[in-house]
């Protein structure tokens, strides 16, 4: 414990200690009457993880701080998007136009020093427009070669705008990349750089001429986040900010390697069996066909969430715990993440519609019935 405190409170002091150790090691190498070299003491594992945890907290704080420069409000959305990026998932954003979805993704890319691309989905967009395609080029020698021209998907952060406007074929191509993190064109596979994150949007207003994502495809998104219209104050701030400049002013604070380190650290966050069971029960309770399904599910749900929901809950809960400065997953983490994880994975029946219940209302009921 004392060793931890010392290492936590003053990381810089470890350096002189290490220096002393090196000095001692060097001294030990000096021939003496008994030339037995002392082995240099390895730095304790715990101090390394403490440093990583410290770095994790600082990185999250920096990212949030930078994002605030370009994105007004949307704290919950920002937290969840950050959580999904660190957890290695993809996010589906639903919101009316002009609420700052694109700006958010751009700012994210900037703060993380990650290449960003935006794909505006339209009905005539082809899969190759997303993934890239082989073209024939003449080289310097005049020889005709086949060259793969990467599509906009080859970025670390991709904004898939209005994904429901694309054809199912194009959607499938996109979603396949999201799942596999690689592109296969003409039997050639091209891996995407990690971390790879897709933030897709759906326009809830213009539904004419759209191809709603099927549930199986929706399941590939870790979160579905709702972006509400900003409050009056937030709108006023947006207007004030954009009067000055429309450019994003966020600066890079971390890089992709740091995100991967954060992801790796989050994997080690402990979760007790009771919390794990709670998460599992929560997902199974969304199924009305199961004997132990909750009463609300039996009444309001047509079909429930897939096993990916349980995986997403635990994975993201670990990240969320670290983001909040905790080192273990709690029931509060699971309950908070239940909404973004489950809302696109549960299909309500007509009873819910007639009772004017939203999917979030039903999720709330199911949480209350899960013990």
């Amino acid at each position, binding site marked *: *414990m004392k060793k*931890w405190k010392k290492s*936590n409170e003053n990381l810089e002091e470890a350096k002189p200690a290490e220096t002393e150790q090196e000095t001692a090691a060097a001294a030990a190498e000096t021939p003496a009457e008994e030339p037995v070299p002392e082995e240099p003491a390895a730095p304790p*594992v*715990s101090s390394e*993880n*403490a440093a990583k*945890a410290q770095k994790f907290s600082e990185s999250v704080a920096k990212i949030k701080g930078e994002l605030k420069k370009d994105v007004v409000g949307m704290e919950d959305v920002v937290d969840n998007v950050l959580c999904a990026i660190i957890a290695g998932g993809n996010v589906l954003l639903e919101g009316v136009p002009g609420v700052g979805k694109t700006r958010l993704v751009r700012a994210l890319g900037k703060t993380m020093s990650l290449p960003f691309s935006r794909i505006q989905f339209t009905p005539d967009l082809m899969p190759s427009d997303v993934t890239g395609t082989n073209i024939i080029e003449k080289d310097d020698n005049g020889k005709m070669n086949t060259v793969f021209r990467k599509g906009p998907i080859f970025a670390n952060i991709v904004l898939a705008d209005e994904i429901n406007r694309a054809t199912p074929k194009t959607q499938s191509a996109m979603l396949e990349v999201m799942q596999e993190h690689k592109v296969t064109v003409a039997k050639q596979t091209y891996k995407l750089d990690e971390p790879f994150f897709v933030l897709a949007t759906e326009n809830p207003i213009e539904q004419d001429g759209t191809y709603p994502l099927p549930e199986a495809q929706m399941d590939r998104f870790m979160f579905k986040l709702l972006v509400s219209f900003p409050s009056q104050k937030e709108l006023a701030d947006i207007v004030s900010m954009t009067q000055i400049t429309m450019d994003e002013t966020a600066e890079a604070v971390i890089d992709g390697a740091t995100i991967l380190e954060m992801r790796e*650290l989050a994997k*080690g*966050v*402990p*979760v*007790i*069996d*009771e*919390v794990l069971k709670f998460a599992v029960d929560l997902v199974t309770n969304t199924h009305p066909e199961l004997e132990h399904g909750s009463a609300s599910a039996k009444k309001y749900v047509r079909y429930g969430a897939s096993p990916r929901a349980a995986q997403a809950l635990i994975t993201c809960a670990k990240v969320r715990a*670290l983001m909040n400065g*905790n*080192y*273990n*997953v*709690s*029931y*509060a983490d699971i309950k908070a993440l239940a909404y973004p994880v489950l809302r696109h994975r549960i299909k309500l029946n007509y009873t819910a519609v007639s009772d004017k219940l939203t999917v979030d209302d039903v999720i709330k009921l199911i949480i209350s019935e899960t013990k």
Partner: protein
Amino acid sequence: MDSFNKLKRKYLAGAVIKSLLCALAAFLAAFGIALLAFKLSAAASVAYSLIAGAGAAVVAGGVAFLAMRPTDKRVAKKLDDEYALNERAQTMLAYGGRSGGVVELQREDAGKKLSALSVPAVTFKKIWKFLAVVAVSAAVTVTGALVPGKTAAAGGTVGGDDSPVTVTGAQKIRLRELISDIESSRLSEDLIPSFTAPLEELEAGLDAPLTLGGLRSAVEKASAGVTAAAKVPATYAALADAFAPVMPGLASALEEGGDAYRYFGPLKYSDVQSFYEVSYDAVREGMDPGFATFRQQFIYTAQEGQAESEAIEATRTLINTMITNIQLGVALSNLDVATDPLCIEFWNLTGDLANVRQEEAESTGGIQEKLDSLFAGFGFGLAEELSAQSYGLLLAKYARNALAQIFPELGLKTELAEERRSDGQGVGPGGPGGQGEGSGGDGGGAGSGSMTYGSADEIYDPATGTYRKYGELLSEYYAMVQEMLGGSEITDAQKNAIKLYFDILYGINAGN
């Protein structure tokens, strides 16, 4: 884990305190309920109530501790829930044996949080429910202690054998009256002390503090003493058994005459004085048939053509045989010939018979005349002695009934007439269809009809200003009357009349 273990010890102390409170509540509740149950069943026993309470306390305390004992998991969950630790304690416990990664950070973080906690072992918020249960149980105990038992509620009636009992002044007066009745009875002077001694011993013991069981033992001892005193002169049964083989008529006379007392119901005071005369008739009535058979044995009828002298000699031989049989029977009875009154009668009879045998006789008729005169006297004497024995037996019965009535809290049964005679007639005062004096009924003593008694009715007592049972009041009034009669100048006849009046009342009361 040090801070966790410290907190666990505090929870353990809390569990112990709660278990002790459960045990205390169980003890108080069980003790109070047992005490109340014992009291209402008139068998109050503090010892058994304590045992019941202790058993309940052990069981309740043990079960409560087993249910509440703080395991590591329970403590961790409790800490997380009560102090909003977000499952820090449970995670620390679950991953206690692991190292590396975030796990160690979590352990350190949880340890810091736990160290900063100030967890009291017990707070009022945690134990107020237990205290409320203890309070309710205490109320049950107080109720059980305050509710009067059957002894107090019934105003001095039957309680447990260990319960103290107070003999009233009226009871002592009535016991003294009983002793006086026996002393003034027609019992022979040498028998009176054997009757009164057990009663006087009882009387002397009433001044000391008594329990119900002790009083019962003393009264039963006095009853047994009086019964033993009465059996001493009841020697007719021994003689009847001895005479049965050779002189069944005599045996029957003895048995029937001696058993005549059984047909009499409970004696009243007036019977104690007058029964002697009444019993003679009853004894005579019982013994005469057998006596006649016995007398017949002494009658010799001369055979046809037999000379008178030979007939006389044969009669004398018969008398000799009878004398021998009588002497043999008396001897076989194992009674003291010198002191037993019945034996003396028989011995005198043999002497008289011997005299008759010796005397000059001119004819058997003359011998028979002498024998008639002799047997008339013998029959009278025999009946008198049998009456005396019956009197003693009845007096003992009277004394036993009186004791049962004087001490009703003992629940002793009074003795009634054992059976009717074969002709269905009862004997004694107030015989069948006789008009005894009672309230609302007829008859009294053997052969009485149904009676209703007013002793249970309540009347207003001006002395205390309360309503009391007439039976309780009666003895007090009689005691006062006794005192007044002792010093007053009213005549004996008036005194007897007053005594008789109360006798009648007691006679009615005796049936309650």
